[in-house]
């Protein structure tokens, strides 16, 4: 029973990571139908920015400074990719896929050249050592922190989308790109904003990964496949769907690990999503659209 409850908790923390890693993908795919293969490298960038921030700002507050820094850095990098590449290829989704994959390889190699192949170490601050113990259940502080960050990010994103003018524009473009454009909305700017926002969230996720393991040039690769699965299962471009899918897959992966090895649990995850899509092809939440050709 303790094992089950521990894994349930681990599942929620894993789900938080999946959510942070996949929100950006879901947003940009929902809005632009762009599959950004370099999204994992935004996680990696966030990890290295956390490391850089902590070497400049040591001490207990370093990790809190690192989150906005990683967000801003990854958002800026996302902006460069969007303006320099994705926008120019927007009419050709397959080309975007290949081009962003190329960007992903270039960024990995750049990280290797800059920081070395071995990876750098981010030490969690002392206030994240230890954790809560409830009976036989242990809740490590780092994982509680990750869950808290995911909740804050999700709440902030929801607020932005529902309560701000830019959110209104995003929703408008998401529902009907051509009609939104016809009413005078600068669709290109909305695309750029969403791409930056999504990349920034991935950057913040990179800081969380740095708390759990080493930051290496390939650190994003381990999370990009689950992130894609979350997006597929969640339904295109829906924040609610992405959240539900991340929660289901995170808990599923963690519970599966009670019985099988991690590698097998990843395979089960894939099978689970394939079966789910057979039953519900539109995902957890179907994208509402007024486009006839959607």
């Amino acid at each position, binding site marked *: 029973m*303790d094992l089950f409850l*521990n894994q349930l908790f681990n599942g929620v923390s894993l789900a938080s990571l999946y959510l942070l890693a996949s929100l950006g993908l879901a947003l940009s795919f929902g809005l632009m139908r762009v599959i950004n293969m370099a999204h994992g490298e935004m996680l990696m960038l966030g990890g290295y920015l956390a490391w850089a921030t902590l070497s400049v700002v040591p001490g207990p507050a370093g990790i809190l400074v690192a989150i906005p820094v990683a967000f801003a850095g990854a958002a800026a990098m996302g902006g460069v990719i969007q303006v320099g590449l994705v926008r120019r290829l927007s009419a050709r989704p397959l080309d975007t896929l290949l081009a962003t994959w190329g960007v992903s390889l270039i960024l990995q190699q750049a990280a290797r050249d800059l920081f070395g192949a071995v990876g750098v*170490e981010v030490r969690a601050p002392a206030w994240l050592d230890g954790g809560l113990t409830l009976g036989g259940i242990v809740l490590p502080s780092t994982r509680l922190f990750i869950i808290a960050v995911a909740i804050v990010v999700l709440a902030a994103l929801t607020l932005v989308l529902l309560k701000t003018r830019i959110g209104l524009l995003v929703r408008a473009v998401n529902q009907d790109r051509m009609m939104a454009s016809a009413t005078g909305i600068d669709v290109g700017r909305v695309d750029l904003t969403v791409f930056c926002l999504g990349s920034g969230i991935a950057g913040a996720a990179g800081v969380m990964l740095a708390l759990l393991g*080493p930051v290496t040039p390939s650190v994003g690769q381990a999370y990009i496949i689950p992130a894609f699965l979350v997006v597929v299962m969640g339904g295109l471009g829906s924040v609610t769907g992405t959240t539900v899918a991340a929660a289901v897959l995170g808990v599923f992966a*963690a519970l599966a690990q009670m019985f099988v090895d991690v590698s097998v649990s990843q395979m089960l995850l894939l099978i689970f999503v394939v079966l789910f899509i057979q039953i519900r092809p539109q995902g957890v939440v179907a994208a509402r659209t007024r486009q006839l050709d959607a």
Partner: protein
Amino acid sequence: MIRSKILLLAASSLTLALGACSGEGGGAGATSGDTVAVGVLQSLTGTMAISEITVKNAEMLAIEEINAAGGVMGKTINALVEDGASDPSTFAQKASKLIESDEVATVFGGWTSASRKAMLPVFERTKNLLWYPVQFEGNECSPNIMYSGAQPNQQALPALKWAMEQGHKSYFLIGSDYVYPRTANLILKKHIEKAGLQVLGESYVPLGGTDFSGVIARIRQAKPAIIINTLNGDSNVAFFKQMAAAGLGSKTIPVMSFSIGEQEAQAMGTQLVEGSYAAWNYFQSLPGDANAKFIAAYRAKFGADAAITDPMVHGYLDVYAWKAAVEKAKSFDPEAVRKAAVTLGAFQTPMGMVSFAPNQSLSQKAYVGRLKADGQFEIVQDSGADIAPEPYDALAFPGKTCTL
């Protein structure tokens, strides 16, 4: 018109150059003239880079020292360094490139058993020789590999013997999900069961994997007396980090690692792994002039705070053993060299006097060390005498023997 003439000139000179190369490559190839080419093949990128770059450095150091002292049979060694990229199929491709197009006399390299297994058919097909510097799971015996790293009876079993002597009755085995951890753990399980002790659990994570939440929950549930860790590469960082975060530091449950040396401990931050145990055939803290000389030479070249590990020393001694065998055989031919290598007798290395056994593995001592705060291991167990290598564990692989 002038441009086309230049082009023609360039093309013809290129053809000539190619012709000259292939002409040279027809026979003795890269060993003709006054140089001899050898391959150095380690992962310089990817999850294994944390461990393998320093092995490459040690192999290069030996090559430079030998060149400075006059080379091998009057020839300067020309080292061709290739990156296996932590990927077995890349290792196989690069091995094939080194042997078939660069025509190297021999190759030094490899770390994971997956990379060695991928290279093995290349070396057997081309009848070349690989010098493999890392401890492994045994259950393999090829005439085309010189296994200088520990066989299971020279690392895993001495470590288990130590753990049993400490009174540990229950074991939890974790490892990366590939051939070495699974085979090493199979051997350990047989021996633990034979001793009437318990294996409480066994868990594998993909090579390079960083999610240990499930593994740690299972460890917490099982409450083992000791954890045997055969994780490879930087998964170790994630494992120790998450163990510490879960309140399961080395004071709560000791961890015995087979793939963490001084360099890995340094790279992941000593405070994370302080107090945990490792089993190797060499520790930087070993006494002896040869060791002190090697450490000084390495540090002079690669930095005053560079850590020295067991696989680095094996990589280093492999190059010297190859040189000695070539000079004994008076030939660069891999077949002659491997026959000479097993009849060399004892030779001096940073880890003391060692020799190759007839099964092409090294006879060597085994140690268990406990990691101190300064990143060095305090030796807590010493096998004393050299242990003869046994590629096939009698319990796990009954009836199999290695005859070359």
